[in-house]
């Protein structure tokens, strides 16, 4: 299970967009692909990560992260920051 605190932060950042698309919170699972679901576009995804960097004070290697399978899922984003302890 991914870090619940970090996960909540990610959820809060995507909540408005999800609501506009009619997605319920139960649909926002760890394996939800943020890009393929149409929730974010590429730029939106990068903005999300940059926003999380500011909030956590951590800097992540986005290029390497994108090469990992599941890198653009909700769980993948949380994992990305968890790795960067």
């Amino acid at each position, binding site marked *: 299970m991914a870090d619940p605190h970090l996960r909540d932060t990610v959820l809060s950042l995507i909540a408005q967009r999800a609501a506009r698309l009619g997605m319920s919170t139960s649909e926002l699972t760890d394996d939800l692909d943020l890009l393929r679901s*149409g929730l974010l*576009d*590429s730029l939106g*995804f990068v903005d999300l990560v940059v926003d999380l960097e500011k909030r956590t004070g951590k800097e992540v290697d*986005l290029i390497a992260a*994108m090469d990992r399978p599941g890198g*653009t899922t909700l769980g993948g984003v949380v994992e990305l920051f968890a790795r960067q302890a």
Partner: protein
Amino acid sequence: MNDPTWYDPVTVLDRSVATYSGREALRVAGRSLTYAELDREADAVAQWCSDTLPTGCRVAVLGVRDAISYAGILGVLRSGRAYVPLHPDHPEERWRQAMEQAEVQGIIAPSTEHHRLRGHTTLPLYVPMPHCSRVRRPGAEAYVMFTSGSTGGPKGVQVTRANVAAYLRHALQAWDIRPEDRCTQLFGLGFDLSVHDLFVCWGKGACLSVPDEGHALRLASYLKDERITVWFSVPSVIGLMQRMRALEPGSFPLLRLSFFCGEALPWAYASAWAVAAPNGSITNLYGPTEATIAILEHPVRTPFGTMGTVPLGKPFPGALVRVEPEEDVRTGELWLGGPQVALGYVQRQEATDAVFRTDPRGTRWYATGDRVRQDDEGCFHFLGRMDDQVKVQGHRVEPSEVDRVVGMHLGAGRTVTVAVEGTGGVRLVTFIDVPGDTVALMRALKEQLPPYMLPEAILILGHFPLNSNGKVDKRALKELANHG
């Protein structure tokens, strides 16, 4: 080389197959095809078209990242027919509209996609032919590509093989692409800049490398892993890579040539790219689909500008260009003429007549709707649009086309979609003045509009702000979209 058929796309590929048969032509979806292999797969498609479909008809090609899409385009052209690309990410309703308007008679798609298509069409679907011969039939039209239309929905631009030949004549003569090059294929096949990707690369015997799906965020790795030497994309990709911190000094030492097209290229982006690809040159291209791929070019040289955007450049040799003057003779709407000007919009005479004009001397012109200024050196600079059209990641969008679809679902009230400039790009926001279920509306839009035309939000207003002429004040709506 003065033979008008020398640069015909079919002839261009045939020459490369004869010269470079054993060289790698295409890397896609984990496969690698030589020119000889691509040639055989294209012949199988040409044979199927000849055996199954009416002469000279149009054939849809589902633009998935699969060798069949590429062989499909080549095979359709070889059979003397024109192709109509369908974007895999677009809703099926959009495909249906395109196929109906263009009177498509058959579809090329990998067998894995047939089930998805069978529910929507009774047209014949491509199956590889057991035996095939070399099919080459003359054909006038090359493709029909759909672009956003302000009234009446998407417009299909009819482009001829002679139009494409005129583009290739310049591209293959002017740009130094070599057989050992690895070229990108980033543009969707439903975007006419993909025609450049395919035929400029193959015309020089180089290798076309198609990234895997979802690669927009993996472009830096793709560039390195595939040892890319020739790049072509929309400028907004630079912004994306910059934000990913992928553009470090010297990141891409192998890049020799980079081309950008589809939207304005900010100087800041050009500079960032030059730092990441220090051994390469940058060329900015400009051109609407109606004038075939690109028609102005600007080699980006030092000293780089610090503000604003890179000029659109000067016309290709043979292209005709004029400015319909406004306040002074050098500023106004850009009109394009010459051998690259397309036939018009399929089944849309009124829309065609509105922008394709013939002057008293019999020269055909396309009025671009782009406001430009020509400087003392003859170089064109982009000033803006005459209408509301915007570019979203290089895609042309008429906000009123979104309004039309929203209006169809609402049945009452007014709809106004505005485009607002945010960090990294343009986004659309739709306002409606009647109460409605915006979530259901968004779902409905998803079924009819391509992803880049979907508004980021649909907002309900009691009353639209009006300007002093009593019209909806779009500037005020943009303010609301930005801050509301």
